[in-house]
């Protein structure tokens, strides 16, 4: 069963987002996503200063000779990309909600995180994709 922490927001494209105390949004892909992808071998993330749009691709991830897009959960500007994650992509599999975080975004709309899916709603997304039974 994939981990879906209650305190995070989610997208239907399997990204997670956490609003930090300074208002910025830390983003990664979910435990379910990494399990669907298999061993991650390459990450291409946007550099700091890049403008991203909610729901649009902001990076790429390669696993098992398969290239997938990583989507921005909120619109705004990337203020930090996790270079440790780029250098060691396997951490996305090992710790997707921790060391495997991908970028920090300064959201253009401070309330943007509020429109993300809750953990319960995201579990329903997983169930609808046929991936797993609901908890």
């Amino acid at each position: 069963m994939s981990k879906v922490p209650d305190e995070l927001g989610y997208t239907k494209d399997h990204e997670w987002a956490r609003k930090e105390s300074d208002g910025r949004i830390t983003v990664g892909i979910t435990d379910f996503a990494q399990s669907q992808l298999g061993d991650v071998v390459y990450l291409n993330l946007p550099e700091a200063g890049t403008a991203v749009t909610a729901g649009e691709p902001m990076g790429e991830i390669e696993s098992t000779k398969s290239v997938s897009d990583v989507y921005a959960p909120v619109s705004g500007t990337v203020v930090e990309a996790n270079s440790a994650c780029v250098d060691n992509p396997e951490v996305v599999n090992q710790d997707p909600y921790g060391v495997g975080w991908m970028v920090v975004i300064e959201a253009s709309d401070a309330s943007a995180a509020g429109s993300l899916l809750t953990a319960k709603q995201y579990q329903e997304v997983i169930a609808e994709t046929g991936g797993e039974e609901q908890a």
Partner: protein
Amino acid sequence: MAADLALLESALHGDDRRPRVRLYRWDPPALSVGAHLDVPASVVLGCLDNGIEVIRRPTGGGAVLHDRDLTYSVVAPTEGRSVLETYQAVASALIVGLKALGLEAGTADRGPATPALHCFAAPTGADISVAGRKLCGSAQVVRRGWFLQHGTFPIFDIRQKVASLLGDAADSSAFLREFVPSATFETLALALIEGFATAFGPPAARGLNREEKEHLERILSVEMPAAVADPLASV
């Protein structure tokens, strides 16, 4: 391969959820390079010196020499399946097709996660093997619930040529004529069409439709990232 990407783009924008399959060969021969693979400039120059084009694939994985081989592409919805599950769905069609040629094929054992320069040197767990040796390498790109998968069957023994071009030791991968000496592109294509028909339903043969051609024209008008930024800059 631009046409394959056009089929994917068109599928993403349309409501026809049937799989699309293409089978083709290359003239002149080409080295296709995975979406994120860095190829040494010496490899690119070696290919160009030998009349081999070097192109960038939208799919992942390593480098593949296309020389009298058969290349397939499949565009299909993921339907919530994992990457490995979609590989296995395509593999099941390929295995049925190879059976029509009298071959007992299976999926290759999973190899190391580390990407290799030469695609056939790294089994993924969903590649096709015969007698324990890799006969078909595959790679994918996944976008918004659809995947495009490429795969290649070497028909002739090009292993020494690959080793010479990629600066690799000759690998132990297989080629079709080893098992079916009379095999041609045409006999393999007919067998694979049978396999895909079994897995995906009866085919409706057609060329690219108007919308797909428009996507192809747009893709061809955008310069794809080169295999290396400037092969001459580092020699």
